[in-house]
């Protein structure tokens, strides 16, 4: 059969077809790739450029729209404020409020009936208020900076002191909520007027979200009313006032120049001191009563109104923002990137509003401030590339160009954010292209393989036939047109092969067969020297086969001879080996017997050990009993000691009592001695009296003498008794000391005894452990003895097995004798075949046979061993 897989490997015989096949596959692959890629690339490029353009245009339009909306919102805001200032300035309420406040402001001091001393103390208290509450709030908002209080308080007029005292310092509301007070606790008509107008103006201020509304006396420059009651209230805005140079003062002066109430002056945002340096814008308009300019109304606008408009960032994505920049190049609102900006000390309260550390000076800003509008890519204040739309915003229009206020409005968004969808599209297309390439490669490879497999099969078959193998057929692998071609080729080959054979050769074959038959008959008789003749005809092949057979037969017989010889020799060798083996096994049997005797001896020794350990256990138990007896004896000793101690103490007490008794006796004896002494004196005097009596007293003198003698003896006796008692007392005290020593001895004796008891207890526990140990040793030796017995039995078994082995070896020797006899018989039976003297024509064949004999013989030897 043909081998299609072999042809696949590209052997050199199929070179012609291989070229054709390879080129088909390559063409298929390249063609499919081209078809897949060209339109895809074209489409991708178109989509990419279009999307980029659309995104850019859309963003540009969006920015422009937002910018314009914000600009118009800001302009409307300020226009509305200007209109409100103007209309309020013209309203009758404000006109009457100004004139009333003007009048009552000047009479306030007289109405309160204040003297200069009292005013001085009010000024002092006001100074304290400036230095504490105002300064604390100011420092809190301005990172610890403090205002110069003296500069603020000293220029205040007496009216200002009075007003600020009542409406600011004595105002019960906290800082920032001072506007809530409608009337101060004083007697002035100013307070009556204040109560009348303040709620109205405060409502107005709240409605328009202003930070303050102020009314100023046009003539004196005094701030006669301030809605929020900040510290510019009641001060003079003329040259000597503390706030004359502030934005408020400037607004007042502007309003003095205005011709009518519609002519509103606007002052751009600036930090205002009394508002704790928060940015403030001032709108001012003059107030006319009929045609007399009586005052000025000022609106203070907080910047958060502007900031609220600009910080609404709807439609500006992640990085877009709108910024208002004044002609001073400072921001009017907060940057959304404030946290990312480098920090500096003057950045107030986390704000970029009017922050001089952040000047926005770019060509875009300049262009907007110059009045131009546009959209372009630009670097912003952070150094980031942005798409920026700019335009100017007119905050205040004026005929006078100098007082006109214009801001630059910048709406911008980061280039990166604008390009983000385009970039993402680019990467998505790259991924799709990679995926498509893989799919096209895999599918076209599969298709090409399917096509070329069938052509390979056909080409392999044709190749075989070309080499003369007409049996070769092509494998039908597909059902398409190529499969049909393979089937047709196979059918053609089948038809051609059957036509090759002819009938003419049959007779020749018959003759050759006859001749061959005769030659084979000779060989059959056992003569292996003969060979069949090899001819050209049909039987030639058969003859050759027969010769081959004879040759093989010869080889077998020769091998048989050699093998039998080898077997005989080997049997002899085996005989020797088995003899040796049987001798060895007998020796082994002897050794085993000796070993088992040794093991039995060991077992008996172990039993001896076991008996000895049992004796040890008995001894240990005895030791334990002795220790227990010892402990009991010690306990008895200790009890005895205790009894002795008690007895000794009892004795000591008795002896002490005896000492005390002898003391009493001593006292009695002393008394006796005293009596004896007195008796002696009496006797002496008696003697004297007797002597004086002369002869009549002679007898009495003798008695007196005897009495004296007795008294003397009694005295002597009492002295002896005294010394005896002293001796007794000394001895009793010695006895007591001795008793105490005895008690201590007894105590230490019982301590020693208890130590002995403890030691005996330890001996007891140790001998208990010892007994347990010996017990376990006994148990182990008993087990060892059992094991030794088991071992001895095993050795006996091994001994019997060895004996059996020796017997088996003897049997094997007998069998091998038989084998030798059998091989002899075999040799004689083979001798019937005759073999040629010389070796057959092919030496190669002979060598082959001899090679065979060697390994077979050695194999038999191995098996016997």
């Amino acid at each position, binding site marked *: 059969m043909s081998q299609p897989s072999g042809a696949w490997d590209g052997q050199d015989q199929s070179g012609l077809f291989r070229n054709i096949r390879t080129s088909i596959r390559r063409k298929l692959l390249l063609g499919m790739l081209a078809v897949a890629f060209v339109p895809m690339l074209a489409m991708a490029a178109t989509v990419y450029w279009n999307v980029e353009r659309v995104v850019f245009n859309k963003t540009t339009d969006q920015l422009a729209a937002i910018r314009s909306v914000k600009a118009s919102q800001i302009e409307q805001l300020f226009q509305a404020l200007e209109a409100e200032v103007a209309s309020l300035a013209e309203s009758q309420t404000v006109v009457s409020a100004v004139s009333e406040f003007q009048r009552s402001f000047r009479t306030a001091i007289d109405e309160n009936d204040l003297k200069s001393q009292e005013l001085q103390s009010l000024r002092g208290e006001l100074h304290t208020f400036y230095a504490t509450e105002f300064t604390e709030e100011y420092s809190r908002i301005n990172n610890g900076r403090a205002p110069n209080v003296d500069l603020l308080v000293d220029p205040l007029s007496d009216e200002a002191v009075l007003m600020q005292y009542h409406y600011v310092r004595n105002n019960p509301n906290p800082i920032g909520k001072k506007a809530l007070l409608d009337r101060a606790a004083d007697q002035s008509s100013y307070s009556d007027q204040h109560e009348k107008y303040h709620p109205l103006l405060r409502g107005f201020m709240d409605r328009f979200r202003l930070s303050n509304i102020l009314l100023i006396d046009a003539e004196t420059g005094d701030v006669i009313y301030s809605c929020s009651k900040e510290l510019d209230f009641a001060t003079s805005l003329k040259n000597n006032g503390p706030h004359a140079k502030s934005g408020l003062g400037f607004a007042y002066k502007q309003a003095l120049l205005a011709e009518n109430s519609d002519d509103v002056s606007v002052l751009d945002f600036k930090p205002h001191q009394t508002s704790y340096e928060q940015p403030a814008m001032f709108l001012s308009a003059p107030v006319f009563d009929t045609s007399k300019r009586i005052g000025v109304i000022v609106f203070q606008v907080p910047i958060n109104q502007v900031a609220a408009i600009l910080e609404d960032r709807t439609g500006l994505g992640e990085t877009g923002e709108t910024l208002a920049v004044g002609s001073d190049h400072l921001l009017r609102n907060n940057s959304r990137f404030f946290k990312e900006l480098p920090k500096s000390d003057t950045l107030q309260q986390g704000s970029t509003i009017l922050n001089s550390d952040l000047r926005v000076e770019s060509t875009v800003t300049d262009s907007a401030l110059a009045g131009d509008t546009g959209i372009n890519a630009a670097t912003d204040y952070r150094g980031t590339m942005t798409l920026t739309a700019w335009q100017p915003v007119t905050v205040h229009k004026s005929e006078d160009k100098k007082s006109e206020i214009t801001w630059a409005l910048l709406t911008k968004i980061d280039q990166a954010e604008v390009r983000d969808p385009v970039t993402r599209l680019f990467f998505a297309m790259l991924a799709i292209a990679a995926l498509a390439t893989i799919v096209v490669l895999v599918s076209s490879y599969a298709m090409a393989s399917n096509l070329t497999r069938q052509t390979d099969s056909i080409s392999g078959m044709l190749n075989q036939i070309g080499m003369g193998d007409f049996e070769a057929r092509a494998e039908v692998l597909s059902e398409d047109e190529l499969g049909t071609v393979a089937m047709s080729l196979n059918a053609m080959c089948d038809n051609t092969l059957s036509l090759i054979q002819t009938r003419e050769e049959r007779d020749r074959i018959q003759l050759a067969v006859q001749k061959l038959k005769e030659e084979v008959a000779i060989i059959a008789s056992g003569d292996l020297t003969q060979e069949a003749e090899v001819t050209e005809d049909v039987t030639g092949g058969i003859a050759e086969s027969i010769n081959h057979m004879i040759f093989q037969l010869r080889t077998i017989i020769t091998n048989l001879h050699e093998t039998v010889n080898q077997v005989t020799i080997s049997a002899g060798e085996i005989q020797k080996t088995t003899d040796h083996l049987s001798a060895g096994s007998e020796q082994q049997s002897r050794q085993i017997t000796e070993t088992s005797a040794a093991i039995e001896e060991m077992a008996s020794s172990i039993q001896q050990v076991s008996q000895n350990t049992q004796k040890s256990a008995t001894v240990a138990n005895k030791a334990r009993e002795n220790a227990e007896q010892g402990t009991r004896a010690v306990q008895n000793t200790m009890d005895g000691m205790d009894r002795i101690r008690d007895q000794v103490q009892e004795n000591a007490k008795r002896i002490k009592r005896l000492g005390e008794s002898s003391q009493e006796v001593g006292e009695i004896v002393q008394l006796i001695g005293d009596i004896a002494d007195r008796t002696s004196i009496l006797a*002496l*005097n008696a003697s004297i009296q007797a*002597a004086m009596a002369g*002869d009549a007293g002679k*007898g009495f003198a003798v*008695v007196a003498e005897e009495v004296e003698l007795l008294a*003397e003896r009694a005295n002597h*006796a009492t002295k002896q008794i005294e010394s005896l008692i002293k001796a007794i007392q000394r001895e009793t005290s010695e006895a007591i000391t001795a008793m105490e020593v005895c008690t201590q001895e007894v105590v230490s004796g019982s301590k020693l005894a208890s130590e002995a008891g403890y030691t005996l207890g330890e001996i007891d526990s140790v001998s208990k452990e010892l007994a347990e140990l010996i017990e376990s040793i006994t148990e182990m030796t008993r087990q060892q003895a059992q094991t030794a017995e088991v071992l001895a039995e095993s050795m006996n078994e091994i001994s019997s097995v060895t004996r059996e082995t020796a017997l088996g070896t003897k049997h094997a020797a007998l069998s091998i004798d038989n084998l030798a006899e059998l091989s002899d018989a075999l040799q004689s039976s083979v001798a019937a075949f005759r073999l040629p003297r010389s070796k057959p024509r092919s030496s190669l064949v002979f060598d082959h046979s001899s090679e065979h004999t060697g390994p077979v013989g050695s194999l038999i030897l191995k098996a016997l061993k």
Partner: protein
Amino acid sequence: MNGTERDHAIDSLPSAAKFAVNLAELIAQSTKPTAGDTRGSAVGVPQPGTVNNRNKHVVFVLNATHYAVPLANVLEIQRVPQITALPHVPDWLRGVTNMRGDVLSVVDLRMLLKIELAECSQDERMVVVKSTKEELAIGWIVDRVVGIRGIEPSELKSTSLLPADSMASFIAGIIQRDDRLIAVLDVNRVLSSPELRQFELAS
């Protein structure tokens, strides 16, 4: 009751009672007349006439030296009474005391005779003496009164051995008794001594 039975009886008594019995025996022994008692007198048996009243003397001790004064000059012997000290008087005049209503001057004889003071004695006594003629009574403080002893005038020995100082002038003589010398004082000389007389005149 023989000795053995008595001993048994004593042994059976309690210790305090035993002591009392022993004490009684001790007193009895000391009062029994001994072999060495030279006077040989028995208790309660007066033997008049053995010693002349005139020759009787009161013997006392001043710092281990025995002195004697005639019994005729002694009014009485007392324990040292409470003495009221007087101002501006010599050391030997201890003061005055109340003697049954009479004021009695008390003289420390040891100081008067310039004898060193012995250790404070429990047996200190006051001997009240009087001169034979003038009926002047004075209390003498002495260390101890030994008793009344009879002294024969023949026993008196001269005092020529003693130095002829003020002390010598008070001594009438010296006798030897039981290996001991006893100085016999002449009370009249002592009481009429310049020291006492000067004091007496002054007072």
